[in-house]
C-alpha cells in the first residue's frame, strides 16, 4: 500500500519535473492515455468490489489500454480522422459505467451493513 502511494508520488513529481517538450499534436495522445489509465483504474476498483479482480487482467489492461488509446489517437491524427474521439467516447462511457457500478455496490454494501447492524439490536 505504502509502496503504491510512494510510486504515485514519485510518478507525479517525475511528471512535473520532466521538461521534455513534445509537439502539441501529441498532447492528444497523452490525454487519451490519461483517460485510459483512469478507466482501467476504476475498472480495477469495480472488479475488486465485484470479487472478480485479477492482477494480470488489471495490469495488462492498464498498459494495453493506454497504448491502444494512444495508438488510436496517433492513427487518427495521421489519417485526418478524429479517432481520439472514439477513444474518449469509449473510455468516457466506461468510466461513467464503472463509477456508477462502484457507487451502487458501495451503496448496497452500506445499506446491507446498516441492515445487519440494525437487526441484531
Amino acid at each position, binding site marked *: 500500500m505504502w509502496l503504491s502511494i510512494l510510486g504515485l508520488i514519485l510518478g507525479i513529481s*517525475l*511528471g*512535473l519535473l520532466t521538461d521534455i517538450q513534445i509537439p502539441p499534436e501529441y*498532447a492528444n495522445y497523452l490525454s487519451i492515455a490519461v483517460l485510459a489509465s483512469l478507466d482501467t483504474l476504476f475498472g480495477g476498483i469495480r472488479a475488486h468490489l465485484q470479487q472478480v479482480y485479477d492482477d494480470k487482467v488489471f495490469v495488462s489492461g492498464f498498459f494495453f489500454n493506454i497504448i491502444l488509446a494512444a495508438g488510436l489517437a496517433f492513427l487518427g491524427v495521421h489519417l485526418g480522422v478524429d479517432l481520439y474521439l472514439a477513444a474518449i467516447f469509449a473510455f468516457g462511457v466506461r468510466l461513467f459505467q464503472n463509477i456508477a457500478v462502484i457507487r451502487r455496490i458501495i451503496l448496497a454494501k452500506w445499506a446491507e451493513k446498516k441492515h445487519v447492524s440494525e437487526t441484531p439490536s
Partner: protein
Amino acid sequence: MKKQNNQKKPENKRYRFSKSIVFSLVFLVLGFIMAYSYSLSQAKQEASEFTGGAFSQEEERVREELIEQQERNKELRAEIEEKQKSVQQFEQSFADGEEHFADYAEEAEALRLYLGVLPVEGNGLKVTLQDGEYNSDSANPNDYIVHESHVFQVINELYISGAEAIAINGQRIHANSYIVCTGPVITVDGVQYPAPFTIEAIGESDALESSMKLAGGVMDQLVNDNIIVTMDAGQKITMPALLTES
C-alpha cells in the same frame, strides 16, 4: 486472491510484495502520465499566451516605436524646412545687402568725387577760357575779359550735363567752393588765378562737349562776350584731391 491468502501463508507475503510492486508501478505510470499531461497543458497554455500575447505586444511596441520615429522624422523635416527657409532668407538679405553695398559704394564714390577728397583720373572735357583780343574800339575792357560769371556758366553747364569732378586751373571745385571776381583775376577758394582759365571736367566728354555746344548755349554766349573758348574732348584728365596743396 482470498483463496491464495487462505491457502499458503509463506507465499502470501511474497505475493503481496510483488502485488504492491506492480501496483506501485501502475500508480507511477498513472501519476507520471497525469502530471506530465497537466504540466504539458499548462506549458501549452503559456506558450499559446506567449505566442499570442507577447508577440502582439511586441508588435504593438514596435509599431508604437515606428509611429514615434515617424513623428520625430516629421518634426525634423519641418525643422529642416524652417531652417532652409531661414537660410534662404539670410541669403536673400545678403544678396540684398550686397546689392545695397554696391549701390552704397557707387554712391559713396560719386559723393567722393563731388567732395573731391580723392584724386581722380578719367576722360573728360577741357575748356579753356581766354580773354578776347584787345579791341581798341571798345573802351571798356570788361567787354572782352573773362568774368567769374563766365566761369560759373561753364561750371554749371558742365555739372548739369553730368560732370563728376571739375577743376579750375588744377584746383578742384567742391560743393562749398567759391569763385569771386577780384579785379582782373578771379579767386577760387582763396587762390587767385589770372586768365586763361582751364576748366577740366571728368565725365562723358561727348555729352559735356555737346551740351557746351548747344545752339544759344554756353559756348555761344561766351563767344558773344568775345571770349576765346577752346575745348579739348576725350582727354585723360588727372585731378588732385581737394586737400592737396598746389
